């Protein structure tokens, strides 16, 4: 195994590609050169800061408590980010935070319970980051889909309620459709892995000099972890949001940009 160390010179070399992107923008008068330069600089600053903080957290001598504290911060930020990305979904902040916390508890319990990875800062933080990162898109999708579905199919849902169905039964076909919509991309992506694309973690391991078969087994474990996490987070958000759209006496609430009356 050979270690891959890019160094400042290597990093500066890769910046050549940013220069090419800016040149193309100038040549084609896309007026994006400022945005490209800002994006590249901001990414560098953010990652440097994160790298510095991670170095402290992941230090073998550092207490594992710091890694768990990092995860808690990630969960809270994930909830806030979800609210920014889908403000039309009522209660997305607390539902998002709850679903991410559930994902972390369930998935890491399985992973660490079966001893798939050791309980160390260097495993806790990246694994939690991957689960949260991959779950966020699906959570936004399921939240938006449920709000749209319940607005468009309000007549059908109320017709079911009017026939005496309890709210969970009246909502099931529409919540189910939204859950399927949110889960299918992750399932498809899991199917295509290795054939259509090489996932980031595996690519990173191979670039870092890890044996290809070892990289594959690690990647597989991570893919299963991600699929399970996405399914868990989507289900928590989907069921929680559905519950929130009904009153306790089986009436469907009005759904506006912001949820209003009961």
């Amino acid at each position, binding site marked *: 195994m050979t270690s891959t160390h890019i160094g400042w010179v290597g990093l500066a070399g890769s910046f050549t590609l940013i220069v090419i992107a800016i040149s193309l923008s100038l040549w084609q008068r896309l007026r994006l050169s400022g945005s490209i330069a800002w994006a590249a600089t901001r990414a560098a600053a953010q990652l440097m800061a994160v790298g510095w903080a991670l170095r402290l957290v992941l230090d073998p001598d550092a207490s594992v408590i710091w890694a768990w504290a990092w995860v808690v911060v990630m969960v809270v930020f994930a909830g806030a980010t979800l609210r920014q990305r889908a403000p039309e979904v009522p209660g997305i902040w607390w539902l998002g935070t709850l679903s991410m916390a559930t994902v972390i508890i369930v998935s890491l319990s399985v992973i660490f319970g079966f001893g798939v990875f050791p309980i160390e800062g260097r495993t806790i933080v990246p694994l939690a980051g991957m689960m949260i990162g991959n779950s966020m898109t699906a959570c936004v999708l399921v939240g938006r889909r449920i709000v749209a579905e319940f607005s468009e199919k309000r007549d059908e849902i109320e017709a*079911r309620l009017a026939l*005496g169905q309890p709210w969970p039964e009246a909502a099931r076909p529409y919540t189910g459709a939204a859950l399927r919509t949110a889960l299918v991309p992750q399932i498809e992506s899991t199917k295509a892995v290795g054939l259509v694309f090489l996932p980031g973690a595996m690519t990173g391991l191979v670039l870092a000099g890890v044996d290809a078969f070892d990289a594959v087994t690690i990647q597989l474990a991570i893919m299963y972890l991600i699929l399970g996490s996405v399914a868990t987070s989507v289900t928590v958000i989907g069921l929680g949001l559905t519950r929130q759209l009904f009153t306790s006496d089986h*009436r469907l609430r009005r759904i506006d940009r912001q949820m209003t009356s009961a």
Partner: protein
Amino acid sequence: MHPPAEPPLLRFDSVSVVSGSGVALLADVSAAVVSGAITVVAGPSGAGKSTLLRLGDRLDIPSSGRVLFEGTDIAGIDPRRLRRSVGMVFQRPVLFAGSVEDNLRVADPEASQARMSFGLEQVGLDASMLGRAGDDLSGGEAQRVCIARTLLTEPKVLLMDEPTSSLDPVNRRSIEALARQFADRGLGVMWVSHDHVQVSRLADHLIVLCEGRRVSDLAAEAYLTEAGEQGSQP
């Protein structure tokens, strides 16, 4: 127009509804639905007719006042049980995905073929329709299936929210005839309409709403007389 002769199945007792934005949709409206009669709720668009009907099925709740079913405040009745006793037919026929049989089974998952066939016959449809896809039905057929579906819950009251507004005159008259049959069998029917001629044909009792308020009985009589005159014109 006849005065109610027996205790109402459904009674709206000074109900008011205020929207989330503070607009009064209904203000202090009282009304009753009695067994064996059709109570028509008439008035212009936006008068609060549908809002009143939705209170009866507890799809909405009043901001003040109360609704009583067989003398009991519906706030104290399990909504699922209430809604099987107080059926609702919506303005636009709402069919769920699947066949006619699938739709009927939403109302009664255990219904036998004979019961479903009888349900269809009650609304003038043939039992052979059970296997047909809901998407293939005409507007009139779809509304009849919706009525048959509601009847499977064996309601005592039928709330019908402009059920013929999207139908042609022939279907309109036949749905009206069905409502009359149901009333003759003892159901209490509440029918929302803004069609003067239809009002004059159907109303045993009339409630006229205007801007969320119930107009006086005298004004309602005048409305019915005017409607009758319009209905008798060639």
